[in-house]
């Protein structure tokens, strides 16, 4: 991917079905662009996102992973995103502790009505990760493409 030209990061976005995935749909409906290197994986709730999925993404060559869910208090399943919030806070803190760049992971709450926010969030996340350069601290060399 990085052939002596501008670095284009691979971004995996986990979106909960009820809010953020719908928010992503809305940014499409409103034609609000965000970079094409963001690929969305639909999960029923942000609390379905297992830390292993995040590590797996980094292993396979993702440069950034973002998890989007309903705003706390608005979870379709009432409490799922509260657990997400605790789990991801602790996981991100651990990754930071291990020296993994903080900006490679993020949690954002995006409601089904926030198409604009979804697009802006993705743009800003891609910008942050691009600035960091390729993920070298949490990659599996066997999966390296170049």
């Amino acid at each position, binding site marked *: 991917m990085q052939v002596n030209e501008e670095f284009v990061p691979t971004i995996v976005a986990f979106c909960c079905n009820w809010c953020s995935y719908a928010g992503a749909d809305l940014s499409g409906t409103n034609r609000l662009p965000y970079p094409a290197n963001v690929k969305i994986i639909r999960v029923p709730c942000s609390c379905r996102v297992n830390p292993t999925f995040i590590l797996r993404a980094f292993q396979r060559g993702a440069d950034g992973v973002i998890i989007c869910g309903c705003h706390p208090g608005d979870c379709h399943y009432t409490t799922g995103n509260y657990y997400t919030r605790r789990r991801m806070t602790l996981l991100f803190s651990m990754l930071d502790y291990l020296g*993994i760049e903080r900006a490679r992971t993020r949690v954002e709450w995006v409601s089904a009505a926030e198409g604009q926010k979804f697009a802006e969030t993705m743009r800003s996340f891609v910008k942050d990760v691009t600035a960091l350069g390729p993920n070298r601290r949490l990659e599996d060399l066997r999966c390296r493409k170049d």
Partner: protein
Amino acid sequence: MQERLKARARELLGDGVVTRVLGWKKGEFSYDITPAVFESAEELERDFVFDGFCGANLSKYLIQEASKPGKGKILVFLKPCDSYSYGELLKEHRIAKENVYAVGIPCEGMADADRIRARGIDGILGIEHEGEDFLVHTLYGDERVSVKEALAERCLSCKSKRHASCDELIGEEGEDVPDDVRFTEVARLEAMTPEERFEFWRGELSRCVRCNACRNVCPACSCENCVFDNPASGISQKAAADPFEENMYHIIRAFHVAGRCTDCGECSRVCPEHIPLHLLNRKFIKDIDELYGAYRAGESEDGKNPLVSYTEGDVEPSVVNERGRA
């Protein structure tokens, strides 16, 4: 103390309260004490040991030992820190409480044989507490080492001399120890730059040989089947093939025991590569204490651990960025 424990064990065996005793006996050397089950007074008399090398946490063995049908109750000796692991296992329904008779015993800290040997003391035969010192019996006579210089790391940062759960107590109940040194090392790492931290952990984790000793000894790693052994989990691995897998294994292991780890320090004690694994668990404990209020796994047999509970006003994950930059 050894004789007191023996006597009490004999009594309970004799009264028929218990049928077996879970304790410690000498291994190959007198400093590699191992857990053992004693079924008779004779066995106890011959092999039972309790001295400054009895660091091993017996609580995890109860999962197996207390579930043996028709075997009756088993007596277990629990040092204060072990009693938290026991409490946590009870909370997770891993131990049939009705089959256990738990006796809390006092602990003045356990010695680290490596530290003693590093002082040129060899041919160790036994160890005793004597005031501020350990009295080490060796082939070449007795040696004195100050407690501070011989204690295991986890005992230097002991969290409590008070037992969490037990049926009976031998000796006086102790008190909690303030957390003033426990998190010093974690804080030191936190104060480093990310690059320094990365280098530190690379240096440590790259030594991992995936012997699984940490997993085998950890009372929180008590799964019937570990995700890393389960091909269906998608993350199974036998030996870490590259730095990523080393990271993966230790991150996920620490995450799985987060909120359940009692900081007993067994992982670091048994690691043949001397990787300070407890610093991963302790990081989670420190974060949990700071972000969600002080919590001590295993302290109570009911309630929810911080990873399976929440409050509406919890901090956002972005706190990680903000804390780091302050």
